[in-house]
C-alpha cells in the first residue's frame, strides 16, 4: 500500500525511497533518501546520484554539517524518536532560518497530530503522521490558532 504523508497541507503519496545502511546505491534516477552517515561517508557517490537526493537526520546530528549541500538536497527528514523529544524543532529552525534551506523538510518518527502546529511553525512542511492517528484528518490540526506571538 502506498505510503501517505501530509505535505503542504495535502495528502500525497510518498515516492521517496529510504536507502538502508547496507543497501547498494542505485544508478537509476530514483528519488533517494540517504542515511546521514552514508551521506557523509560516501559523499562523492551520493552527490553524483542521478535522481533527487534527500538526507535522513537523527535528532542528535549536527545540521551545520549539511550547510554546503543544501542546494543539492530536495528533502531533509528529521526523526522524532519520541513525540516529547524536542531537539528536532531546533534543528528545523536552524536549517530554515539560519541556513535558508528551501526544499521539503519532513518530520518522521513519532509525529502526532497535536504537534503539527508547532512543527509547521519551526519550518516543517511535510509530516509522516503516525498511521494510527489517521493522516487523512491530520490537515485540520495544522492551524488551531489564528496567530502567534513568535
Amino acid at each position, binding site marked *: 500500500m502506498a505510503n501517505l504523508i501530509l505535505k503542504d497541507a495535502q495528502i500525497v503519496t510518498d515516492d521517496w525511497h529510504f536507502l538502508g545502511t547496507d543497501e547498494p546505491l542505485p544508478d537509476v534516477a530514483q528519488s533517494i533518501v540517504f542515511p546521514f552517515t552514508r551521506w557523509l561517508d560516501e559523499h562523492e557517490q551520493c552527490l553524483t546520484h542521478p535522481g533527487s537526493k534527500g538526507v535522513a537526520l537523527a535528532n542528535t546530528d549536527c545540521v551545520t554539517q549539511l550547510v554546503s549541500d543544501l542546494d543539492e538536497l530536495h528533502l531533509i527528514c528529521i526523526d522524532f524518536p519520541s513525540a516529547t523529544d524536542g531537539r528536532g524543532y531546533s*534543528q528545523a529552525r536552524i536549517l530554515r532560518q539560519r541556513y535558508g534551506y528551501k526544499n521539503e523538510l519532513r518530520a518522521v518518527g513519532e509525529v502526532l497530530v497535536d504537534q503539527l502546529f508547532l512543527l509547521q511553525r519551526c519550518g516543517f512542511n511535510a509530516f509522516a503522521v503516525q498511521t494510527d492517528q489517521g493522516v487523512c484528518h491530520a490537515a485540520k490540526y495544522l492551524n488551531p490558532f489564528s496567530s502567534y506571538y513568535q
Partner: protein
Amino acid sequence: MALMYQYSPVDQRLVDERVVQFRDQTRRFIKGELSEEAFRPLRLMNGLYIQRHAPMLRIAIPYGLLSSEQLRKLSYVARTYDRSYGHLTTRQNIQFNWLKLEQVPDLLADLATVQMHAIQTSGNCIRNITADHMAGAIEGELEDPRPYCEIMRQWSTLHPEFSFLPRKFKIAMSGAQNDRAATQVHDIGIQIVRDPTTEEVGFRILVGGGLGRTPVIGKLIRDFLPKKHLLSYLEAILRIYNLAGRRDNKYKARIKILVNSLGIEQFTQLVENEWLQLKDNSLTLDDFSIAKIRDHFQPFDYAPVTDGKDVIAAKRNISPAFSAWYEHNTQSHKVPGYRIVTLSVKAPQQAPGDLTDVQMDGVAELADQYSFSQIRVSHEQNLILADVAETDIPALWRVLVTLDLATPNIGSLTDIICCPGLDFCSLANAGAIPIAKQINARFDDMDYLYDLGEIKIKISGCMNACGHHHVGHIGILGVDKKGEEWYQITLGGSAEENATLGKIIGPAVAKDDVAETIAKILDTFVAKRQDQESFLDAVHRLGISPFKKAVYG
C-alpha cells in the same frame, strides 16, 4: 483604572482558541481516540495533573498579578468546580485539587473570559514567568520588572521551538535590591541592573539555578544585557539547552546539570556564539514596543494622604492586636502615605496557601475598596494589597480579621512555605501540611516569635522541593523510611540576594518530633545570639555544629 496588562483582541483570541484546542484533546481522550500516554504531555502542557484524589489544575497568575475581577472568577471556579478552595503555589500559580476531567474545558473557558489561562503551567516547557510580588510599589526599585515579564510571557506562550524541552524551565525576574523573586534558584534568573559606566538600565542574567534533587545556586552568564536583546539572549540559552540538555534521565535533565557538566565558561561560550547568530533579528525589542507594554503598568494616580500617620498612631495606641499586625504585615511604600499590606494565608489551623471562595471574594472586595482593584500573590504563598492609603488601614484590618487573613506572622516562624505533600500530591513521600500545623501548634506565643525575628521555614514533602526547603532558614524535607514519614532538617538556606543552600544537621527525625527539634534549634539560637542578630546570620556565624549538638547530643 486597571493598570495592568489588558489583553488585545489577538491575546484574547489565542487564549480562546487554546480552550477549543484543549476541549478537543480532552474529548478525544475521553472517547478513547487518544491513549493515556499520548494525552499526558497534552494535558500537562495545560497544567492538568492526575493526582492522588482527582485531577489537579494549575492556573497561571503571570508575575503574581491579579485584578479583583480575576480573583472573583477564581472564587467562582472554586465554588463551581471544586470544593470551594484553591491553593497558592510557590510559583505564583493557583491550584484546584478536586476537579472532574470532563469539566476542565468549561472551567478554562470561564477563566478565558477574565484573561486567564493554564497554558504551560506544567510540562517540559517554559513555565509561568514570576516576579517580585512587590514590584512597582516597593521603594528603591530600579525599574518595575512586570512589563518585561509580560514581554517574556508572550514570547514563551506556545513557543514552537521550546515546547518539548528536556525538562521544565522556570524564569524569574526582580528589579529591586532585595530579591523577593528567588532569582538565584531559577533556571534563568534576571535582575534589573544599571551599567556602572554607561548608566544604562538592563539585565543581569543568571543561569542554571534550581532546587529539586540537585540544588544549585544560579551562575552568572552575563553581567549586563541591553534591554533590546532580552528575547534573543533567552532564545540562545534555550536553544543550547534544547539541543544539548540530557534526555536520558529526567533527574539529570534540568539546565543546571548541563551548565555544571560543561562548566559555566564553556556553556557561556556556546550561548554567546549562538546569540551572535540570533542577535539583532526580529526578536530585538525596540523602544516603542517596550514603551507600549510599560504603558500598561504605569503607577496609579495616588491621591495625597495627609493625616495617615496620626490615624495609624491612634489606632495602634488603643489596639495591641492592630499594632502587632501593622508592624509585621505592612511595610513602607514608595509613595508616602501608602503601605504595602501582606494578607497572611498562614492562619494556624489552615494549610499554608489555601484560600476559600469566601476569602477570595472578600479580598476582591477589599482590593476594590482600598487597593486600586489589584491583588498580588507571592511565591511565599500569601496575598498582597500593594497600594493602601494609611488612612484606610484600620478599616482594612478589621475586615481581614473577619476573613482570617490577618494572622500577624509575616516573616516569622509560622509564615511557612509548604508544598501540598502527601495529602494531595502523588509524588510526595511524606506529609508537609501536618508538619506546618504541628509547628503552629507548638509555637503559638507570638511575642516569643517576634523576639526571634525573621525566620523562614520551608517544607517539602519530597526531594522535588516544591516547598523550597533547601533555601529555608530552616528547611524541612519529608522522606519515606520503610513506609514511615521522617524529616530531614537543614539550616542556613536563603533564596534572597544572599542565596545559600542550607546544610543538613543530621539524620532525619520522626514525624512527631519535628516541632520539638525546631524548639531545640531555637533555644540554641537564643542562647548564642549576639544582640539582635538574625537567625540566618547566627547560623552562618556559628555553623551548624552547635545546633547539631543541641538536637542529637
